[in-house]
């Protein structure tokens, strides 16, 4: 009896380990058969977990798949997780057919050789605005197409500005902005909130001020850079901005703004709808530069990428999917579905403005905006950015003076990038 049991147990274990071994290679087999059949299943990864399978966005992807004659399996990840996932998948040789990735990560992924360049893919990028395409360029080649672009501006609470007697149109420089914040504080409200968190979001929000001072990312410790960090630190020190900005993500700052206590908030195109629904009247102006005029804000938004596949016959279909997602009409449709994208082409922008003239400020801001990895920074940008947000944290929290914090940041960035 017990011997029979032993035999069965051994046999079961054997069968189980066979099954285990088989699962190990089932992934690749599935893909190969898909392309042999001609149609089959194509995978798309995007960073929009907030849009579920029944959302307009998911349906649009499905439609693009149908037009290309395939079904699409879509998986949504959190932005940071998607970058890691894309890298790990590239290592395993199991990338998705199309990935939508946050633009500063594009050159990082391209640098690993895991992406097909757009020329090879047979996609025309000439219609895309150069400042928006820049984030997808590395060593003269283009590795992706933006699905649209967004950027930062200053939202304001009309009621609070009216109470404080501040005319938003008068805010054209740092001095006039700080003066406005002081009047708001004087009227018993809070001036401004922004995201100074120790992640990429912190750098993203600081860049309009950094660039608006005339500073360059290749020299973090310039006097211009110090003046920008001093501006933020002095706002916190003088109580014009709350201390919690040091730990604030962009979402948290927006929540703070929605309480109705704040005059201004630095935030992005993606809040346009939420702002319209706020319990008070809102408006937005471009972020001013130090001396006056509009400061260059960083471009945000995702790029459509085509990762390298073992089976090159898949590219033709992937190209069709990417094309379908990035046509002029497609870009306007994305802008409408998401409400936080401005099309990356002039015809697309014109079409959008015809439907939504109120987005004019955003279209202008996007055209003034600058890619984070441009100025030929490429893969150096993430390294520099980490030092930049660390300096912002150290200065805002009072651990170091702006000058010392940026000096240390520049030394570390130079050491890490070898420049």
């Amino acid at each position: 009896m017990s011997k029979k049991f032993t035999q069965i147990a051994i046999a079961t274990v054997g069968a189980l380990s066979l099954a285990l071994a088989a699962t190990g290679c089932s992934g690749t087999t599935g893909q190969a058969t898909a392309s042999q059949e001609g149609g089959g299943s194509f995978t798309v990864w995007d960073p929009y977990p907030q849009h579920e399978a029944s959302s307009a966005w998911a349906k649009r992807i499905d439609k693009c798949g149908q037009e290309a004659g395939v079904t699409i399996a879509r998986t949504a990840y959190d932005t940071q997780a998607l970058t890691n996932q894309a890298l790990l998948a590239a290592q395993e040789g199991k990338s998705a057919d199309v990935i939508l990735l946050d633009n500063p990560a594009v050159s990082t992924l391209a640098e690993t050789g895991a992406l097909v360049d757009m020329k090879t893919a047979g996609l025309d990028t000439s219609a895309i605005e150069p400042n928006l395409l820049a984030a997808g360029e590395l060593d003269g080649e283009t590795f992706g197409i933006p699905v649209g672009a967004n950027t930062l501006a200053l939202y304001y609470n009309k009621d609070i500005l009216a109470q404080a007697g501040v005319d938003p149109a008068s805010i054209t420089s740092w001095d006039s902005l700080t003066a406005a914040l002081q009047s708001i504080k004087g009227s018993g409200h809070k001036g401004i909130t922004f995201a100074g968190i120790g992640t990429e979001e912190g750098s993203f929000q600081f860049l309009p001020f950094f660039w608006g001072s005339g500073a360059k990312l290749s020299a973090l410790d310039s006097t211009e850079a110090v003046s920008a960090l001093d501006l933020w630190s002095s706002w916190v020190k003088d109580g014009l901005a709350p201390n919690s900005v040091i730990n604030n993500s962009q979402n948290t700052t927006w929540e703070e703004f929605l309480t109705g206590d704040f005059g201004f908030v630095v935030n992005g195109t993606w809040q346009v709808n939420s702002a319209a629904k706020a319990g008070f009247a809102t408006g937005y102006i471009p972020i001013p530069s130090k001396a006056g005029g509009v400061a260059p804000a960083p471009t945000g938004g995702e790029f459509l990428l085509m990762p390298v596949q073992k089976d090159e016959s898949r590219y033709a279909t992937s190209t069709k999917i990417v094309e379908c997602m990035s046509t002029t009409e497609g870009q306007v449709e994305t802008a409408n579905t998401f409400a936080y994208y401005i099309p990356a082409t002039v015809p697309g922008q014109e079409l959008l403005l015809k439907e939504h003239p109120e987005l004019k400020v955003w279209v202008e801001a996007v055209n003034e905006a600058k890619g984070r990895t441009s100025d030929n920074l490429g893969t150096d940008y993430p390294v520099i950015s980490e030092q930049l947000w660390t300096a912002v944290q150290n200065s805002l929290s009072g651990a170091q003076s702006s000058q010392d914090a940026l000096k240390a940041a520049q030394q570390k960035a130079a050491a890490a990038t070898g420049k």
Partner: protein
Amino acid sequence: MMTVTHTAESRPDVGEKADAAVPGNRRQRSLGPRTAAALFAAPLLVYLLVFYAFPLYRNIELSLHDYTLRAFVQGKAEFVGFDNYLAVFSSSTFITAFTNTAVFTAVSLVFQYALGLALAVFFRSSFRLSSVLRGLFLIPWLLPLIVSASAWSWMLNSDNGIVNAALVGLGLEPLNWLTSPGLALTSVIIANIWLGIPFNLVILYSGLQNIPKDYYEAAALDGASSWKQFWSITFPLLRPVTAITLLLGLVYTLKVVDIIWIMTSGGPGDTSTTFATWSYREAFGTGTPDFSPAATVGNLLILIALAFGLLYLRVQKNQEES
């Protein structure tokens, strides 16, 4: 696809073998007890190799090579020996992370243990609702860490946090719990102590159940105060349980990432960065994953935990001998 076919193919095979086993006993004998034992151990061995030995080997391999992103994806990383370790040791973050790890672990352990023991002794004398109360103390343990860490970070928020509201209500100055360089580490330690108390309470409470009641009766007859009883009976007899509680607590505390990451991300600057969060930040916290330095820091953590594990075995051996 292949999964299905393979399992389907191997199933009739299973049936055949099992059936064959009934009539002919000869084939069974050739499968000696040693082979059978080895086959039984095989799943466990495979499990250990795949899920323990390989990741460990991979971690060491990562730390000895220079895995740039390109190398990570395409293979062929350059062997750099101990360069990564040298870079970690000479990094300006090292001293901060080292002291923070030591302070975070030591202070957390001392308070978790002291408070856990006090509560365990308190609940030892059962009274009305004592089991309900004891159950309530387990709540921090049952909550997902992301929930408790987020709750702590809201409570300690500089401007809208309930803690500062209470301080202001009492006429005190509000504090920048999570955003001032001097307080951030203290704040995450407080949250971590709160999280660790239930674990200490449970283990120490069950340890207390093993101390015979007679000792206390005898001590009471001799006129020993409860304070004296605690120090002369409870504490010495609890020593083996204490040792394992502290060792497990140490390992848990050394590797804490989530609570610190959610509350402060190791900031502001580096002020609440420990080895564990440093390793996480290098690998996943920035735009460029740096797996080699991350693995290097991770290995240091493993070494520290290993050193304390060996120390524990040594202490245990001494205890058994005496």
